[in-house]
C-alpha cells in the first residue's frame, strides 16, 4: 500500500492535534484528500473548512485548483498566512 506524508502548519497543527501524519494513499487529488480529512469528524471539518485552508503544496510546489497527489508525495496544508 502506498502512502503520502501530510504536513500541517500554523494553527492547523493545534487544530488537528499534530504536525504531520502518514496516510495510506493509492492516488487522488487535493480535493479528494481534503474531503477525506474533513470526513474524520466535526473537529476536522471545522479545522479544514474552506476559509481555514489557504493553499495546498504537493511535493514542495504550491498548487491551485484540484491538483493530482501521486502516491509517495509530501502534501503541505497551509492555513492563511501571516508573515511580513
Amino acid at each position, binding site marked *: 500500500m502506498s502512502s503520502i506524508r501530510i504536513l500541517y502548519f*500554523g494553527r492547523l497543527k493545534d487544530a488537528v492535534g499534530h504536525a504531520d501524519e502518514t496516510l495510506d494513499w493509492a492516488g487522488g487529488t487535493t480535493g479528494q484528500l481534503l474531503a477525506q480529512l474533513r470526513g474524520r469528524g466535526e473537529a476536522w471539518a471545522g479545522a479544514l473548512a474552506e476559509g481555514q485552508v489557504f493553499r495546498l503544496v504537493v511535493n514542495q510546489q504550491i498548487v491551485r485548483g484540484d491538483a493530482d497527489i501521486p502516491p509517495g508525495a509530501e502534501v503541505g496544508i497551509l492555513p492563511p498566512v501571516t508573515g511580513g
Partner: protein
Amino acid sequence: MHCDITIQTAPFDLGAEEAALRVHAGDAGALVAFQGMVRGHDAAIPLTALFLEHYPGVTEAEIRRIAGDAAARWPLTAVRVIHRVGSLAPGEGIVLVLVASGHRAAAFEAAAFLMDYLKTEAPFWKREHFADGSQRWVDAKASDGDAAARWA
C-alpha cells in the same frame, strides 16, 4: 536582476546588508530599504514574544517568485529579502526588504509590492505570546489583502 532570499533565526544588520547589495546593484540611482519590527502590543495585553514558522524550501521559492514578479513590473537591478523565524522579542527586526533600481519611483513601488505580497502570499505563520502567559495564532488581516489587491 540580482536576487538574494534568506530565512533565518538570527538578527539582520541593515548597514551590512545594504553594503553587500551595493556590490550587485549596478548603476542604481535608488536603493529603498524597508524594515518591519515586532510591535510590543496587540490589543491591550503586552506581547512578550512573537513566534514565526515557515515551510522550508516552499517559503523561499515563493518569495523568489514574488521578487520575479516585481522584476517583471519594474526595472530592478537587485533585491534582497531577509525574513526571520523562531522567537522574536518586541522591537526586533522581523523582515528586511532592499530594492535597487535606476530611479526612485520604481524602487519605492517595488518595495511596497514585495511587502504586500510577502504578507499575503509567502508561507509564514505568527503566534503571539502575551505577558499573561496566553498565546494565540495571528489571524490574517483583510487590510493586508486589500493592500495586495491594489497591484492586481
